[in-house]
């Protein structure tokens, strides 16, 4: 019988676009420049990961689906980026927490997803969470699948956030006397 693993919650993102920055050497690593371009246009990156291969370093990021066109335009306008970036639209994030480097959590969740042929495009483990990048159309089914694999608190957080924070330019109010 499988041991029960308790988690505090699962989160599902809205529709996103996966942006892959292709292999580069440490000297031509494009992620810092890409982040700078995104920050300059107030585009949030809800997911960032990097991985190292013998052929170099690859980075993957997500932007909101509605920012895909703008992201492509900004990337194409930058000679360092153009031709080294690819896009996968209609993806989403499925996040389990807390993770705390639990191999059992990772193995059980990944096994469940692969058994049901859920395509995992990227994954990342952070200090508090384990996040999968999946096809957006499969997010709800994948969440239900993982929900059946773990024990969730009765009063767990909702799966979907109720708000989205946008960046913008706003003048700081004058300090009150």
């Amino acid at each position, binding site marked *: 019988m499988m041991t029960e693993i308790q988690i*505090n919650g699962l989160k599902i993102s809205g529709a996103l676009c996966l942006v892959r920055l292709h292999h580069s050497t440490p000297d031509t690593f494009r992620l810092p420049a890409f982040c700078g371009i995104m920050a300059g246009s107030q585009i949030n990156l809800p997911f960032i990961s990097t991985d190292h291969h013998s052929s170099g370093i690859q980075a993957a990021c997500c932007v909101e689906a509605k920012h895909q066109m703008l992201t492509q335009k900004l990337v194409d306008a930058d000679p360092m980026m153009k031709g080294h970036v690819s896009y996968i639209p209609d993806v989403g994030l499925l996040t389990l*927490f*807390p993770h705390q480097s639990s191999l059992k959590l990772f193995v059980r969740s990944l096994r469940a997803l692969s058994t049901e042929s859920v395509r995992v495009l990227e994954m990342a483990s952070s*200090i*508090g969470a384990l996040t999968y990048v999946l096809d957006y159309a499969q997010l709800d089914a994948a969440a239900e699948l993982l929900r059946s694999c773990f024990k969730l608190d009765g009063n767990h957080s909702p799966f979907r*956030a109720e708000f989205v924070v*946008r*960046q*913008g330019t*706003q003048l700081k109010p004058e300090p009150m006397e």
Partner: protein
Amino acid sequence: MSEKKLIMVVDDDPDLVESVSMRLVNDGFRVAKAYDGEEAWERIREEKPQMLILDVMMPRKNGYVLCEEIKKNDQFKDITVVLLTAVADAVTSTNYTHRDGITTLADDFIPKPIDMDKLMDIVKDNLEYSS
């Protein structure tokens, strides 16, 4: 030897909850965690922490509402509340603003991104006054 004080960290960002919790444990506190306002309220009733480090923007019940409920409740009004105000100068298009926070009954504030050393100063100062 006095019992370690219990601090509840409430934020819908698991990484923030984890990183703040690790620092608090490292500095000798006990930690409880919650990931939204409703869950926090339930756990406050169960565990009655001495302090709450409370995010503002959370699902189900935001930090301002939870803070007000705590401070107006005779049983829990002595819990020290430190609000994490993620509503930075560059963030717009949200229902939350710094000005909303001015009228809350929180004991202290710290802006995000969190300066951990500053947070620990705030935690220790406030717990010292409340003990």
